[in-house]
C-alpha cells in the first residue's frame, strides 16, 4: 500500500511536470507583450531591460529558472502587479477560494445526497421527477444567472446581505450557494444511480426479508455503498470548486484565485499563468490521491487499486 502511494505520488509529479511544460510552450508561443500596460507603447530599451532582468530573453533559461524556483515553492515575480509576487497573490487568493469551494461542496453534499436517495427510493414517482428536474436545472442554469438573481433578491431588494466583497460572514452565503448548485446536481445524480444499484443487490433483499423497515435499510445499510461513486467524484469536484469559481468570483466580487486564471492569461503574465496552473494541477493530483485513500479505507475490497 505504501509503495502504491509512493508510485502514485511519483506519477502525480510527472503529470504536473508535463502540465507545466505544455503550459509553458503555450505561454511563450502566444502573441502579446507581458510588460506593456495601458495605451502607451513601452520604450524598446525599457522592455529589453526588463526581459534581461527577468531572464526572459531566453525562453529555456526562464523555463529552468521558474521550475527551480517552483521546486523551492518560490514562484517569482508577476509583471502585471509589480509589487506582488506570485506567492503573495496565491497566499492571498487561494484560501478564499478554498473556503468557498470547500463550503460549497459540503452544502452540495447536504442537499444532493438526500435528493438522490429520495429519487432512487421513489423511482418513477413525482419525487424522482422533481429531483431530476432540480438536478437538470442545476446543470442548465449558468452560474452568472443564478448568482445575479440571488444577488438582486437578497442584496438589492431585501437588503439583508451585502452586494459583494469579502471580509465578513455575511459575504459567504451567496457565493457558496451559487457555487454549490451545479455540484448539488452531480451529487444527487450520482447518489441516485448508486442507490439504485445497491437497492437491487442481494444483501438488501436479505435485510428486507429479515423484516427490517425500508427506512432503516435505505439510510443504515444501503447509503454507505451507494455513496462510493460520489466519493470518487469528490476529488475532481474539490479541485474544481476550489479553483474554478471565476464566474462566481466575478459576480460577487470575491478576491479568489479563479480570476487570476483569466486575468493572468489575458495579461500574458507568464509567472502568474505558470504558478496558477501548477497550483491547480497539484491540487487535482493531491485530491485524487486523497480520495483514493479514503476510498480504500471505506471499501477495503478495492485497496489494491491504490
Amino acid at each position, binding site marked *: 500500500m505504501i509503495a502504491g502511494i509512493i508510485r502514485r505520488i511519483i506519477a502525480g509529479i510527472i503529470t504536473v511536470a508535463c502540465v507545466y511544460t505544455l503550459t509553458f510552450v503555450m505561454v511563450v508561443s502566444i502573441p502579446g507583450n507581458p510588460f*506593456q500596460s495601458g*495605451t*502607451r507603447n513601452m520604450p524598446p530599451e525599457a522592455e529589453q531591460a*526588463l526581459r534581461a532582468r527577468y531572464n526572459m530573453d531566453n525562453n529555456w533559461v526562464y523555463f529552468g529558472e521558474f521550475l527551480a524556483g517552483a521546486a523551492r515553492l518560490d514562484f517569482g515575480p508577476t509583471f502585471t502587479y509589480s*509589487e506582488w509576487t506570485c506567492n503573495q497573490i496565491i497566499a492571498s487568493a487561494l484560501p478564499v477560494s478554498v473556503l468557498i469551494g470547500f463550503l460549497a461542496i459540503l452544502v452540495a453534499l447536504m442537499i444532493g445526497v438526500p435528493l438522490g436517495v429520495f429519487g432512487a427510493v421513489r423511482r418513477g414517482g413525482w419525487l424522482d421527477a422533481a429531483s431530476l428536474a432540480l438536478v437538470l436545472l442545476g446543470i442548465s442554469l449558468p452560474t452568472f444567472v443564478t448568482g445575479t438573481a440571488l444577488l438582486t433578491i437578497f442584496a438589492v431588494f431585501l437588503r439583508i446581505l451585502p*452586494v459583494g466583497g469579502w471580509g465578513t460572514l455575511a459575504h459567504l452565503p451567496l457565493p457558496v450557494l451559487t457555487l454549490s448548485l451545479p455540484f448539488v446536481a452531480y451529487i444527487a445524480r450520482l447518489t441516485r444511480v448508486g442507490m439504485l444499484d445497491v437497492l437491487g443487490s442481494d444483501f438488501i433483499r436479505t435485510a428486507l426479508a429479515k423484516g427490517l423497515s425500508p427506512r432503516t435499510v435505505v439510510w443504515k445499510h444501503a447509503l454507505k455503498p451507494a455513496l462510493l461513486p460520489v466519493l470518487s467524484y469528490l476529488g475532481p469536484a474539490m479541485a474544481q470548486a476550489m479553483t474554478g469559481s471565476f464566474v462566481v468570483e466575478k459576480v460577487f466580487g470575491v478576491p479568489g484565485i479563479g480570476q487570476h486564471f483569466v486575468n493572468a492569461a489575458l495579461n500574458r503574465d507568464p509567472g502568474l499563468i505558470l504558478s496558477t496552473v501548477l497550483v491547480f494541477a497539484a491540487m487535482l493530483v493531491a485530491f485524487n490521491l486523497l480520495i483514493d485513500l479514503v476510498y480504500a479505507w471505506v471499501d477495503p475490497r478495492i485497496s489494491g487499486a491504490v
Partner: protein
Amino acid sequence: MFRRLLLVCTSLILASVSLFALTAKEPRADFTYVNPSGIHTLDPARMSWTQDFRVALNIWEGLTTWDPKTLSPIVGAAVFPPDISSDQLVYTFTIHENARWSNGDPVTARDFIRGWRRGMEPGTATDYTFLFTDHIAGAAEYVHWRNETVAILTATPVDRPTFHESVLTSHGGDLDDRFDEVGVKALDVRTLEVRLKRPCPYFLDLTAFPTFLPCHESIELLRERHHGLPITAQGLVVYDPQWTKPDYHRNDYPGLLTNGPFMLADWTFKRRARLRVNPYFRAADQIMCRTIDMLEYDNISASIMAYEAGDVDFLTDMSVPYDHELARLSLSGERPDFHSCVLSATYFLSFNCVSPEVGGRLNPFIDRRVRKAFTLAVDRERIVENVLKRGDAVAHSFVPPGAIPGYVPPGGLRRDVNEARRLLAEAGYAQGAGLGPIELLYVPSDERICQALARMWEEALGVRVELRSQESKTFAEEKAHQRFMIARGNWYADYNDPTTFLDCLGIGNGNNDSGYSNPKYDELLAAASVATDPSIRSELLRKAESILVEEDCPILPILHYSTTVAIKPYVKGLHTNARLWFPFRYVTVGRRDQRGSVLER
C-alpha cells in the same frame, strides 16, 4: 450513516466559518471609494493609470500640485512660485521648511533628485522617461549612455566573464559622475535647481506629475547589488519592487514612507488600500477625513449597487453597459449626486499611413485623399447622440477644445459626403470600386461605435467594412506592428499643454501607431518648442494640428470622453475635472446612518 454524514458536514461548515469569523474586522473608514480595476502599481515612477495617479498624488506631494477645479499648478512641497530665471531655463525650488515624510524626516532636495533619477533609469522601466529627456538638460545624454551600456552588458556572452565584470565595474563607478551632468542640483538641503533644455511653459504642471514625485532615502536599503556594485549584473539600477508596501521590513526597511497629506496604512491585494492622515504633514490638522478606504470591486455593476446601498461614498468609474442611463440621470438633474464631466481625452481612429499592404490586401490609406474621404464621411454627432448617448463631446480636433487655457484647436473637418465621394473618386476608387474590404481593428468594448462607423462608410462611400475585434493585448501588438488598416485609439492628456497630444504623431515617436511622418508637422512642433512668446507658440501648434486634422488626416478624432462619477450628497469638497484628479485632503463627510442616508453633521 446519513446522520453521521450530516453531522460531519455541519461541524466542518461551522468550524471553517468560525475560523473565518475570528479574523479581526476594522471599522469603516471616514470615506470609502471604489477603484474598479485595482491598483496596478504604487511606484510613482512606473505608474501610468489615472487610478494609480490618484492614490500616489494623495500620499506623495510633488514640488507643485494641481488645483482640483482648474488643474493649473498650485503650491506643493515647495514655495510657489519658484524662482525662474529670465531666460526661463533655470527653476529654483525651495522646499517648505515644515515639509515632512510620514516618519517625521524633513523632505530634502535630494529626495526629489532620487525620485527623478529613478524615472530616468532603464531598470525602472517607466513609460514616462521622455518627460525628463525632453525637458531637463543633460537627461537625454544620461539616459542614452545608460541604455547603451545596459545593451552592451545584456548582450555580453556569458563566456566572457572578465570583460563583463570590467565593463560593469567601470560603469558602476561612473554612474554618479555621469548623473552630475544632468541639470538637477541640490544647492542645499532644501533648494533644488533644475536646468531645462529649452523653455517649457508647462514645467510647473509637470512637477506635479507622479513621475516627478520624491523618494525617501530608505529605498536605498532595498537596492539590488551585484558584488557590492550599486547596479545589477545587467547594469540596471533596481530596487526590490516591494518597497511600496507599508509593512515590508527586509533589511530594516521601515516600510513605505510618503510625504503627502496621507500615508498608506494597509494594502491588501485585490481587496483594499487604507490611507491614513500623515501626522507630520504640514496641514495635517486641517484634514477632515482621517481614514480613507479604497476598495476594489472587479465588477463595476456591483460597485454601483454597493453605492446605492450606502456601502460606498464615492465612485470614480461607472462604465457599465447602461452608462448612458447614468449620464441621462446626471444631466437631467434627477440624480444630483451623479456628476458628468468631459475629460481631457480623445477617442480617435488611426489610419495606417505606411504599410502598402495589410494582411495581403491593398491598404488604400497610404493615400491622404482616402483618409480624408473616410474622415469626411463620418457623422460624429450621430455617434455621440444616437449610439453612445453618454454626453461625450464631438471631436473635430485631436486636442480637446477648451481643455488647455490659451489654445484654440483648429476647426477640423465637418461631415461632407459629396466631398468625400469626390476625393475617393479622385484617388481612383469611385463609389468604392477597386477597394477591397476595409478592415477596422478595435477592442470588444468599442463594438457600438465601430458598427456605427462601418455603416456610415458603407452608406456614404459604398465600401465594404470588415470589423475585427481583438482582446486588448493582441490588439496592442497588432497596432504597434502596423498590422491594421484602421484601428481605434485613445489618448489622455498628461499635462496641460497641446504637446501632450500633438507630440505622439511626431516622426519616430513610440506612440505614433499610424506611422505618420510629415517633416512639415515636425518642423512646426520644433519651432513651437523654442518659441518663447506664448501666443506665437500656440499659433505654431495650431498650425501643426490643422495639418493633422484638416490636411493629412492620419487620425480621425471622434469624441472627447465624458464620464460620470457618483458622490454621495453628504460628501463635500470633491470637484470633477478633466483629469479626474481628486485630492482627498479637502473632503469632508457628513454623518450618515447605517444605510448611508444623509444626516447632517
